């Protein structure tokens, strides 16, 4: 079947070769490298801090050389050659960004001690893992939201959690029927997550969960037990420091709890710390907004045009006279989900009316009032 091929962003690698090479890892630093590589799994490219460089070794070096256009060298120890490539510490964000945007996952290993103060090999450890859905560096993000989705299924019921770590947003919902499933797919369509986490045993059902072919989304299968209701509930109680997640409107043991718990755990795991900017779970309730599916969004050219997929001639381009990054993101959310409550719409349009009446002050707030003085 065509449906399930090409799912994984990462090409399977020849791990046998590396295992063999590792036998020969005699230097203490390389043993350190091998230990860290075991810890993160072979999917993840390891950037290892050595002096003023982050070094990549073996298969990581080969991928790095190809994708990043950096020089692949090799160190010859006895009869085997050990491939290696490096990037300067100063520009590491740039290189990491390039890999991550191509769907790779990257782990950063830093020196945990001051090298001046230690004799012998400096202790190194993984300080964070960077994936497309867990970026926080401004330079690597666009102005749009950067969502990561977590989906879990139990027979014909589904749980969804959606987070933008860079903004501290976290949403969740339960979907219990086929109609609801369509609703969930609609939400996935409009939020366009760049990374998808799911229970490892669902590997083969991804298109069903996702509602369409996986394109270039990064896929992160997680251990099944992370989605276990009790485990998940505990993770959430611990993270939000609450006695129960019922306060967020999520029923006990519900699938939304499972999806949320696993996602929080994944975020903590990548950041190697508490993601304390996520302070609450909001329920996803798109029934309060106009339903626009992906085809409509595309054909009405709301965000991209149908000629060259840029924003030229689109509604967002016309309306985006915002002056802050938050404003731009907010506007995108609004366009993707027009309101259906007359009261809520009037609140906005009445505000617009008052602002147009106080034109000078309004422009002063925006900081572009000089346009009107010319």
């Amino acid at each position, binding site marked *: 079947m065509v449906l399930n091929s090409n799912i994984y962003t990462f090409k399977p690698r020849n791990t046998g070769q590396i295992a063999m090479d590792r036998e020969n890892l005699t230097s203490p630093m390389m043993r350190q490298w091998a230990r860290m590589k075991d810890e993160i799994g072979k999917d993840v490219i390891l950037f290892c801090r050595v002096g003023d460089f982050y070094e990549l070794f073996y298969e990581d070096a080969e991928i790095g050389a190809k994708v990043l256009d950096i020089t692949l060298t090799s160190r010859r120890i006895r009869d085997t050659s050990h491939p290696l490539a490096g990037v300067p510490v100063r520009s590491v964000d740039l290189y990491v960004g390039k890999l991550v945007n191509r769907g790779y996952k990257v782990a950063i290993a830093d020196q945990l001690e001051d090298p001046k103060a230690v004799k012998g090999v400096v202790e190194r450890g993984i300080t964070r893992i960077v994936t497309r859905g867990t970026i926080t560096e401004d330079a690597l993000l666009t102005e749009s939201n950067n969502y990561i989705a977590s989906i879990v299924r139990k027979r014909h019921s589904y749980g969804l959690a959606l987070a933008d770590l860079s903004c501290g947003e976290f949403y969740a919902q339960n979907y219990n029927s086929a109609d609801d499933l369509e609703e969930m797919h609609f939400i996935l369509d409009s939020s366009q997550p760049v990374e998808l986490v799911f229970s490892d045993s669902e590997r083969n059902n991804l298109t069903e969960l996702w509602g369409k072919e996986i394109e270039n989304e990064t896929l992160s299968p997680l251990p099944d037990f992370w989605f276990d209701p009790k485990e998940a509930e505990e993770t959430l109680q611990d993270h939000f420091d609450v006695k129960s997640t019922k306060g967020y409107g999520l029923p006990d043991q519900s699938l939304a709890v499972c999806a949320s718990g696993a996602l929080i755990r994944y975020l903590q795991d990548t950041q190697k710390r508490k993601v304390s900017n996520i302070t609450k779970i909001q329920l996803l309730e798109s029934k309060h907004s106009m339903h626009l599916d992906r085809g409509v969004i595309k054909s009405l050219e709301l965000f991209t045009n149908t000629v060259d997929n840029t924003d030229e001639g689109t509604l967002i381009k016309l309306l985006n006279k915002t002056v802050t990054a938050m404003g731009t993101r907010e506007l995108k959310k609004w366009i993707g989900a027009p309101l259906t409550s007359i009261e809520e719409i009037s609140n*906005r*349009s009445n505000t617009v009316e008052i602002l147009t009446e106080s034109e000078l002050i309004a422009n002063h707030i925006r900081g572009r009032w000089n346009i009107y003085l010319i």
Partner: protein
Amino acid sequence: MEHISDLERLGTRISLGVSKPSEIVRLLDSLKALPSIRGSLEQIEEENQLPINFLEKITNCADIVDFIEKMILAEPAVSVADGEVIASGVNSKLDELRGILRDGEDWIDSYIDREKKKTGITSYKIKQNRHLGYFIEISKSNVSKVPETYVTKQSMVNVVRYITDELKDWEYNILNAEIEIKQIERSLYESFLNDLSKHVDRMQQVSKGIAELDVLLAFSYIALTNDYVKPELNSSTKLDLKGVRHPVIENFSGEYVPNDILLDKESQRLLIITGPNFSGKSSLLRAVALNVIMAQIGSFIPCNSAKIGIIDRIFTRIGASDNLIAGQSTFMVEMLDDANLVNNSTARSLIIADELGRGTSTYDGLAIAWAIAEYLHNSEAQPLTMIATHFHQLAELEGFLESAKNFHFKIGFDGEKPLFDHRIFPGSSDKSFGVEVAKLAGIPTEIILRARFILSILEGQKSSINEEDGEEKISNQVKDSDELKQIIGTIDDWFKDDFDPNSKVVVQSKQKKPKTKGKTPEEIEVLATIRNLTINSITPLKALEILQNLSSLLNTE
């Protein structure tokens, strides 16, 4: 406000403890802009109470500003490792160590002065490198004057390098101070970020307020520059747009011609807009949808006046060529869209269908367009529907359907060159707009061939009932097919001038009856499944699923 940085993301990086000092400076600048924004908002509220309480979200944050200014230097280094970050007065030990460093430089000057006097060496220099640390450099000509307490470290061509106990003691203190300063700064910065992260909640709230205000300010700016009006939203099922313009296109074309559009569930829920290509059908349709969206996100809209009954879902069926997805035929894409809008339209839906039935041959297309238009009009949901088509024949629906109404675009000619009016008129375009129709029917034999082919299949099905076993459904289909034949007969009439009787022979010879002989059991099953499908009640996803099942059925060897 334009100087306000991305507070949401700054907040995130603070709570993750990864903010750089430069980001803290940006945060500070942003927070400092808040009082002036609040001032302006208060000024506005003196005259009009704003329906959205921005002042509640955009709080002053003066305490955070004070805290940052107290803790961090006005122009901190890029990172703690690169230089000074923490302000003076925060930690007395830090201040003391920084004092030692500063005094250290004075000490070198005074040491040089003292040693010069003592030894009489004029070319007395103190330098520093990675290898030796601090050292004294004396030119070869002065070596004889060097005291015995000096220890020779390196002899170069022109100079000799020395160290002294006094210099090394001093160096030791300086280096220790530097290391200690870094340690203290690092831990102070960490605890600073930790303290600051307690305010992240509030910063996110400010950020939310700024975001909303920013969008609404943008709306008011656009409303003023583009001459928009405030739409009236109500709970009716009418869409009454006077002088509606396409928000994007009106900025590109010199003279834009506005149009009036009225959709009303009771009396006028299906608009059939005819006219040749390029007359403005598509942009009118899109204009209506975009105006509805803009109105319901709270913006003003490009109309002279507008009354909008809330829409809860918009469907589009827009020119198949726009939606080409690799691997799917245009017809398949179109059918998926059609199935979607037929199956899922709600009582408050707005349906925009441009060139319904375009993805296939003209004849099929017209039949499909006709059927879908009819279905939508008669469906329980009764969605508001606008159909643009260059099948002027579709306008005849007005006669069959009570709430359908025709509009058309006119076209004039300046010699050979067509002149487009872009204004919409009631009624349908008459057949004398033959240019387009002629183009459509440009390959008349093909159309007729196709029509004949369909008919022959329908007849073939009738005769196949006796041969096929277990095909109960077909008798129903035959009933339907009689009706269909009537419609197709009508359609046939429109094209009868182009009909070439000779083609009939060819078609007949092409006709194939369903056969079971020579087929594998799988193939028979696949055929049976297809025959039993009720296309209208199948969702696009389901259709793909079925297709997948069928193909796997055929491919399992």
